């Protein structure tokens, strides 16, 4: 199978854990023990992500490829959560979401950078909780305004609807 993607490198997860910034869209990544794809922001040419806690990390991008590795300071806290449920009576998740949690100032931020979704709070649990409730609130808020949305927000609503599924 011919792929337009290019493997531009592999980094080892030595300490301190490096994060990387890429001035192009990461289309996917493989780690030594599975696939890790929810690391790239959507709609942005400048991407940021952090290496997961596996030993090696391969990454793939479309062409043309140019960029610079940036090794950044280790965050106070960074972890990956796999969100399987929204804790909502009315909605469930249509897919497992990979959510990165980091500490920024006084707040913990839970984010799914590929689609720009985030939530925050004064604890890791609260950040994840606000991330989950935010998906439902944003779905309902955009749905209520559906006839008046810009193209950008219509696309966001479609993305939310593909992930936040009404319970029958």
């Amino acid at each position, binding site marked *: *199978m011919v*792929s337009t*993607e*290019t*493997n531009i490198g592999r980094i080892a997860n030595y300490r301190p854990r490096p994060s990387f910034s890429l001035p192009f*869209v*990461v*289309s*996917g*990544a*493989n780690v030594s023990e599975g*696939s890790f*794809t929810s690391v*790239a*922001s*959507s*709609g*942005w*040419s*400048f991407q940021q992500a952090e290496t997961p806690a596996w030993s090696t990390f*391969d990454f*793939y991008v479309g062409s043309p490829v140019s960029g610079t590795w940036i090794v950044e300071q280790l965050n106070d806290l960074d972890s990956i959560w796999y969100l399987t449920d929204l804790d909502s009576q009315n909605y469930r998740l249509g897919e497992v979401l990979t959510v990165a949690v*980091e500490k*920024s*100032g*006084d*707040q913990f*931020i839970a*984010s799914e950078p*590929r689609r*720009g979704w*985030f*939530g*925050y*709070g*004064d604890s890791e649990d609260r950040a994840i*909780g*606000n991330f989950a*409730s*935010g998906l439902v*609130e*944003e779905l*309902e*808020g*955009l749905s209520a*305004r559906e006839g*008046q*949305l*810009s*193209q*950008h*927000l219509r*696309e966001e609503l479609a993305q939310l609807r593909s992930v936040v599924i009404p319970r029958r």
Partner: protein
Amino acid sequence: MASLESDKVDAILERKLGCEVDRKTRDHNYFYVKENEVFLSKTKISKGPKHTLDNTLVMLMARQLQLGVAGNLVKLVNCNLNKDECLAIIRASSGAKPAAGAAQVAPAAKPGASQPYSKPRSPQKK
């Protein structure tokens, strides 16, 4: 490092940028940027006591608002960017057509804003 106080951002988004604000939801207040009866972008602030929005949160909110970089949201809050300038950036970023007589500002602060989002493909090892 950009950091802003949540109450100040709340007030600026509602009063200066003229956002439609939804405070009825349980966990967040939502701010919808509206022009000519069209919602261009939105962002949210967690409910609860006043808190500091650190650099990462300011960046995420600026991206949600289609303002590009964190610095543009800081400029808006610090009155170094007016409503028309913000709307011009948001319009350009979100692909909305300008209102009649509206200011035209290129979204130079957001590289790649015009690039369409493409869904990541399954990675292929070489």
